[in-house]
């Protein structure tokens, strides 16, 4: 088997004296969707930030053949890693179109025509954004902003796309749309590392899954297996809750 696209070993991150991530190890294979689920405050956002180089870390991060400790964001972007951060970090006072163009900034030496072609490709995936292309990002609805964050990350032509709760605060119909897009991206060969509160949807779309608790990887396995693991079902899929409700009534 060839080496995975991303291999993280014994990653540790501390905020001051508090260790938010302890010896976390994970892999994302070429063309795979891997998900990390876990309760609030488990360290999921911390994990993605450290892999991207937003936060300093200890431990090894091997991405696309390069082995690094506490990488720099720029290097990761240049090698094809893209992060949709929890806070989205859009360019609020700039138009949708400018946000997208800047998403492709690492290809700034490309011709205008190539940039336009990339943008048209994305508008095909997100017709809603095309309608709103001239609007300021700050005035978009919550859902549209999520779309824009995702689309901007895609403009960078990533090999690995890391998504921090892409369905946060979205209506169920739009959540379905987001997961449809995630599946479509995989078909196009993009590998994805996905963090989700919506564990049920995440486990359905993913190939492999990790459970993060209190900064440690507590469980891992193929997503379809974890989805039936009684501990995961009890803690994250809410069946136990429903079961008890039924007993109570």
């Amino acid at each position, binding site marked *: 088997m060839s080496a995975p696209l991303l291999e993280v070993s014994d990653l540790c991150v501390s905020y001051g004296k508090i260790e938010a991530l302890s010896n976390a190890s994970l892999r994302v294979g070429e063309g795979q969707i891997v998900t990390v689920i876990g309760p609030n405050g488990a360290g999921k956002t911390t994990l993605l930030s450290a892999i991207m180089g937003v936060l300093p870390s200890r431990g090894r991060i091997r991405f696309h053949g390069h082995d690094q400790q506490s990488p720099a964001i720029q290097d990761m*972007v240049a090698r094809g890693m893209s992060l949709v*951060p929890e*806070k*989205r*970090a*859009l360019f609020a006072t700039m138009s949708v179109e400018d946000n997208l163009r800047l998403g492709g*900034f*690492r290809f*700034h030496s490309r011709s205008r025509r190539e940039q336009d072609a990339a943008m048209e490709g994305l508008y095909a995936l997100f017709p809603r954004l095309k309608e709103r292309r001239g609007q300021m990002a700050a005035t978009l609805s919550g859902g549209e902003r999520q779309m824009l964050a995702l689309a901007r990350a895609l403009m*960078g032509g990533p090999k690995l796309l890391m998504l921090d709760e892409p369905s946060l605060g979205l209506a169920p119909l739009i959540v379905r749309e987001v997961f449809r897009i995630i599946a479509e991206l995989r078909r196009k060969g993009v590998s994805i590392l996905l963090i989700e509160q919506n564990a049920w949807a995440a486990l359905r779309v993913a190939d492999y899954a990790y459970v993060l608790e209190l900064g440690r990887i507590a469980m891992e396995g193929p997503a379809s297996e974890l989805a039936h693991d009684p501990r995961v079902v009890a803690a994250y899929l809410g069946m136990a809750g429903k079961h008890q409700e039924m007993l109570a009534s």
Partner: protein
Amino acid sequence: MNFQIVMLLGQDGLTNGAIYALLALSILLVFTVTRILLIPQGEFVAFAALTMAAMQGGTPVRLGWLLLALAAAAMVMDIHATWRRDGRPAVRRGSVLGVGYAAALTVLTTLVPLGDAGVAVQALVTMALIVPLGLALYRVFYQPIAAAHPLVLLIVSIAVHVVLVGVGLLMFGPEGARTEPFSDGGLRLGMVMLNSQTLWVVAVSLGLILGLYLFFERSLYGKALRAAAVNRLGAELVGISPELAGKASFALAALIGSLSGILIAPITTIYYDSGFIISLKGFVGAIIGGLASYPVAALGALLIGQAESFSTFWASSYKEVIVFTLILPVLVWRSLSHHGAEDEE
């Protein structure tokens, strides 16, 4: 006070106000991109004016040496940085180019007399010295502490300003200097005689503002610089390097500052330490714009120019006091109408 005097004062105010407006824009640009209050902005102005004067007066042009020293320091720092990162020292091509450029320009300005070369050539050489100076200042003094608290950045800014003023005294001496006007004569509009230098100042300022507008609104690099100001993390995530953005904003500030110095030199006698008070007026303009709005900052600066000009007439010894007291009502009004909450982050 008759119409003639009003027009004369108004013209003076407009000339100075246009320069303050340029400086206000520059201070704003640097602040939004890097959170640095560019106190040394004024040194770009004074150094440019005095370098022009030195060329025209046939005295030695020493600014190249400062640039060379900073470029060498930048090279050492780059080598040190790669050493710490990769475990072995390496020389970047960029830093070699920087030192080579500074050396070539130093040789050129010391050996070739530029007294008769014409204002255009002198202005180009001056800008060729000062724009990279801005870049080097960022690399040497600010880039290593880019993530520091704004207060630390401010303190460093003040220190850099003080050091540069001292170096200015060494390079240019204590005497003031004035340069020749770009052209003679003027333009008669009805009863009013427009001074040719006023026309130059207004035309170049407008041209520069238009150029900046096109750069920031139309080009990808201009947008990238704006993006770095709007959301630092977002900019980094799309591959806009904060170091490059910082250097670019400093280079632009140095460009604006040197142009202002070249424009103002025929109107006002400039000393090695005159830059500060000039850029302070641009700074007041930027404050009026809330360190956020470009058009309001520019308008504020124009207003400062007028206030200064008319107070020279009425109470000339209180000129500076009046101008800087103007900032108080603005600050009171701003703090009263301030909504407090900024957006996310």
